[in-house]
Every structure is written in C-alpha cells, then in structure tokens.
C-alpha cells in the first residue's frame, strides 16, 4: 500500500475557501445541536440526568402531540402529493396557456403562512365566516364548527395546509415533467403503449427523483408544522390539534423548561431523519 506523508505545516489549498461556510455551519448548526443535547441531559442544579427523556415516555400530551403530528403529516402529504401530481400532469398535457395556469396555481403558496392562517380563521368562523355563510346561502345549514370542533379541527387544519402547499408539490413535479426527455415517450407511443402504460412505465420512473424531493421537502416541513396551528387553533380544542412543535414552543417559552423542550426537539430531529431515510430507501428500492 502506498502512503503519502503530509508535510508539517501543510495547509490544504481549499481551506480558506471553505472556512467561512464551515464556520457558519459550526456556529449555527453544529454548536446549537450539541448545546441542545447537553441542555436535554442537564437536570436542575446542573447535574447530568436522563429525566427529560424518561419523562417523554409517559407524557400524555407529548404522546397525543406525536400521534397528531404523524396523522397531520401523512394526511396532508397524501393529499398534497396526489392533487399536486394530478395538477402537474393536467397542466403539462395542456397545449396552450400552461404558464397562466401554473402562475394561478402558485398563488396560495406565495402568501405568508401567518397571513393565510389568519384569513382561514375568519373563513372557518362558524357564525360569521364565509364558509358556513356560503353553505347557508346554498341551502346547507351545517352545524359544523370546523377548527373549533373536536372531530373536525385536525381535518380543517390539514385542509388549510393542502390549500397552501399543494402548489409546492405541483411546482416541483411540473419541473420534473418538463425535464423528462421526449424520446422514451415517443418510443413508447410507437411501440403501441396505452396512455396508462406510458404513464406507469415511462413517466413515473423518470419522475421519481422529483417525486422523492417533493415528498422529502414537504414531509420535513409538515413534521415541524407550527404557524398555521398556532393561529388557527392553538392546539385545541383540548389537544385535538396539538403538535410536537407547538408543545416544544410552549414548554420552552411558556413554561421556561428548556431542558425538556431540547429533549423533545432532539427526538423530533431523530424521527425526521429516520423518516427521510425511510422514504429515500423505499423510493430507491422501487
């Protein structure tokens, strides 16, 4: 085996070029992560402890928040992906006016999430809101209280997310569709493949990288959902829309318990990483 000795005092040529970004990464990502882990493992009086992690195991609110976060993520992701893909295919198949439709579909995503949530809070208002108002006008007298109802709150919040972020999936998949070369599609057509066969055996496999990216980016965003729920329901009624991010915020900034909040953040980080790896593996396997 050949070895090369590094002369003393050697400075790699690229070091000055990467040093600023490495410093920023260390200061803003690595150090806070290590600090958060240390915080999570420190008890009252500074003694090391696992109490913050053991508490997680039997914390009912955390359990409910975790279950709701999973439900919220999966529910919103499934709808956003399905509708986003359908819209991307539909717009892609149009002969003209594609750019007009594309721009129109992107509008919800361009609103700041907080503004969108405030608007939806007004829309959902059971008595004065435009949603029930419109339903009443067309003769449907609903007693649905949307974000204020125990059984409808989570679905209502998911609805807002679908409205706002389906365009994001649409955007990524549209770009993916445009990047697909025409030759394999033409070859399939010449070979007599049906539209469904072309879609299943040519378009979908070629669209896979864009699909993985869209699912991953959206899932990571959904897992840490905060702003919409904070404005729409504050986690209520009861814990019907409580999510892990909301609970972490409350624990840190309302209850001043930074150690427990750090422990929850760490668990959320690990869960998100495992989920992302799972999605990547599953998509690669196919």
């Amino acid at each position, binding site marked *: 085996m050949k070895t090369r000795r590094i002369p003393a005092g050697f400075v790699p040529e690229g070091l000055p070029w990467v040093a600023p970004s490495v410093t920023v990464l260390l200061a803003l990502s690595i150090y806070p992560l290590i600090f958060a882990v240390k915080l999570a493992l420190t008890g009252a009086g500074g003694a090391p402890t696992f109490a913050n992690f053991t508490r997680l195991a039997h914390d009912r*609110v955390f359990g409910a928040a975790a279950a709701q976060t999973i439900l919220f993520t999966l529910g919103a992701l499934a709808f956003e992906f399905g509708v986003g893909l359908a819209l991307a295919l539909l717009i892609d198949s149009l002969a003209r006016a594609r750019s007009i439709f594309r721009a129109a579909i992107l509008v919800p995503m361009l609103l700041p999430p907080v503004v969108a949530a405030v608007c939806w809070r007004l829309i959902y208002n*059971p008595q004065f809101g435009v949603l029930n108002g419109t339903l009443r006008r067309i003769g449907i007298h609903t007693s649905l209280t949307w974000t204020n*109802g125990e059984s409808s709150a989570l679905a209502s919040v998911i609805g807002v997310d679908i409205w706002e972020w389906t365009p994001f999936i649409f955007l990524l998949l549209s770009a993916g569709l445009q990047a697909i070369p025409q030759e394999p599609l033409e070859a399939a057509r010449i070979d007599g493949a049906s539209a469904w066969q072309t879609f299943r055996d040519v378009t979908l496999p070629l669209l896979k990288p864009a699909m993985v990216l869209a699912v991953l980016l959206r899932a990571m965003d959904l897992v840490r959902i905060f702003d919409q729920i904070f404005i729409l329901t504050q986690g209520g009624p009861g814990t019907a829309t409580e999510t892990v991010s909301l609970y972490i915020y409350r624990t840190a900034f309302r209850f001043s318990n930074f150690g427990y909040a750090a422990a929850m953040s760490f668990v959320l980080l690990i869960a998100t990483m495992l989920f992302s790896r799972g999605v990547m593996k599953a998509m690669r396997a196919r």
Partner: protein
Amino acid sequence: MNAGVEGTALKTAAGEWGAAHGVHVEVVELPYANLFEKEQLDLSSRTGAYDVIMMDDPWFPLMSENGNLAPLPRPPDADFIATCLQVCKNAGTYFALPYVGNAQLFFYRSDLAQKYSLGEPKTWDEVLRAAKTISEKEKIFGYVMRAAPGNAVVADFVPLLWAFGGDVLSSDGKSAACDSPAAIEALRFMLELGKYSPPGYAGFNADEVSAHLLQGSAAMSINWPAWIAAMDDPSKSKVAGKIDFTTMPGEREKGVGELGAWLVGVPAASKHAADAFDFIFWATDAAPMKQAALRGNPPTRRSVFELPDLVANFRAFPAQLRSLDSSRPRPRTPKWNEIENAFGIELSKANAGAEDPAAAMRNAARSIDEILKRTP
C-alpha cells in the same frame, strides 16, 4: 409592554415622563403571546435590555424569582387597591406596582333583562335561566363563553369554580383540588351553559366572545373592563348602551371575578434602575393615573376610581371598583403557566364533548399534581 389596549396608556405616560425629564424613552410593544417569553428571557438571562417591564399578574411569581426583579426602593402607599397590591409581593417584598386595575366583570343585555323581567343576574342559576329564556324568545345565544385551551377556558371557568365552592389548588398550593365534587359540578354547569353558547365555543378566544356581544348575537358573558368602551361605542357595537356591567354572579359562595391586573416592575439587570423606579412611581401616582384613566386605563388607586368627574364619564367605574375589591388572583405559583395549560386542555376537551366532566377533572388533577411534584 403589551401591544394592546392595556399598554396604550402606559406608552403615552412613558412619552410624557421622558419629555418632562429630558430622558429618551424607547418603548417596545409586543403582542400578548410574545410579551411573556421576551420578558422572561430578558429576566432570566439578565441582559438588561429593558428598564421597565409590564407584566400580567399571573406571570409575577415566576418573574420575581431568583432576584430577577429589583425590589421597590420604598413600599407603595395605602391608596392602591389591596387586591392589586397583594400580587406585587413575593415573600413579603414588593417588586412591582399595579398599573392596570383589571378584574373580570359580568356583561349582560340590560334591555333584554328588563323586557323579560329577569333583573340583574346575581347567581349562576339565574344566569342559566336568563340564557334559556333569551335563547328561546329572542333567537340569539343566551350566553357566550370562550373555551379554547389555555388561558381562555380557564379564565371563563374559574369564576364558576369559585362560585360553586371549588378551587384549582389546595389551600397550601401543594396539590390539585380541581377533582372535588364541587369542581365537577361547576364543570357540569359550564357545559349546561354551553348549550346556550354559540356552537364551536370550545375554540373561542376573547375576540370571538366580544364579537358576539358587539353584534348582538349573544346576550351575556364574562369579560374584561378593556372591552367596556367598545360595547358603548356605536361605531363598533350594534347594542351600544344596552349592555350593563356588574360583578360576578355567585352560587354557593359569593361571586368572585378573576384578577387580571397589569404590573410594572424593574428588572434587576436594568442599567437605569433609578430612572426606571422614578418613572413607575410617577406613572402610578394619582394625577398621571387619572390622565391614564381618561385614556381608558382602569386605575389601581381607590382615590382615582372615586373621582366624581371620572365616575360621571365612566358608568362602569363603581362596578369595576366593587369587582376589583372582591376579586381573587389566580394561584400564586411560578408554575402557573404550565398548570393553566394542563387544566385548560381538559376543560376544553370537556366543552368540546370529548370528555366527561368527572374524567376531565380527574385527568386535570393528575396532570397538575405531576407538575407540582416535578422539579423544573
């Protein structure tokens, strides 16, 4: 300070004091949801970013811990209303002065009360009967309450709890008391009242409650003095002059409203403590407090509440003073935010129909006991 009606008068006072003393005063206004966290972070990390902070009274036990607030250089005088003053003390030492004299009031449609010969509601049972009558005859909601988890539902439930003879914590403050038969009965009563409240009230906050009153779509509610001006303003209210304000109804016990005073204090790390104390003593003195009252700030001094020209201008002042005198603060514990959150979740669940009242109160008591036992 709070970026809402409660902060407006203090902001003006700060400007006036600054101009009179040749001191530049920078005012930082934050919405209620963020005010606590900014102030608590500043206090606990001793940054000294603020020289005077405005605190909601339930925050005081936590904020005055560990010497984070500077003690007052001299004790407050006896003109301050006793209930407002008692929440400025931690272990016998004063760390703040009361600025906004807030205590819950009972708002009701006096025109409808008269129309159906109901009179001013003195007990919760009378409130329920009135709500029923008004709902049936007027086709509006007889009552409106807020039951969103957290501060909202707890604030609307606690006066009921006290009236039925229950309490959140035991008298020594070391364990939960909210699973007592009286407390469960109070919650059952709340659900009964909920039948006459607009659907979806389990997600309501203060703004929805007031919107229903202002629109004339609900007839009664628990509310805060800050909303009185809006109720009497024809540009905001469809029922201006038709709403009356009185003290909290009782039931088995005398009616007691929740105290929600705003306090001003000086962080221990303040770099201009002498000026800061000079300002808070000046702002809470009788003459500037009268000016603040004219701008809509509920006073904390008896002498200001009783000024004839103010009483002539503010018809609710006598009721506000009676309510303040009899009001009770929320339990004085640094863990109140966490307790309120746990209690509020169960109350909200019960109001949303997701949990039976007895189970909700048992779960709340269990969570509160865990919080009280836990070292932070």
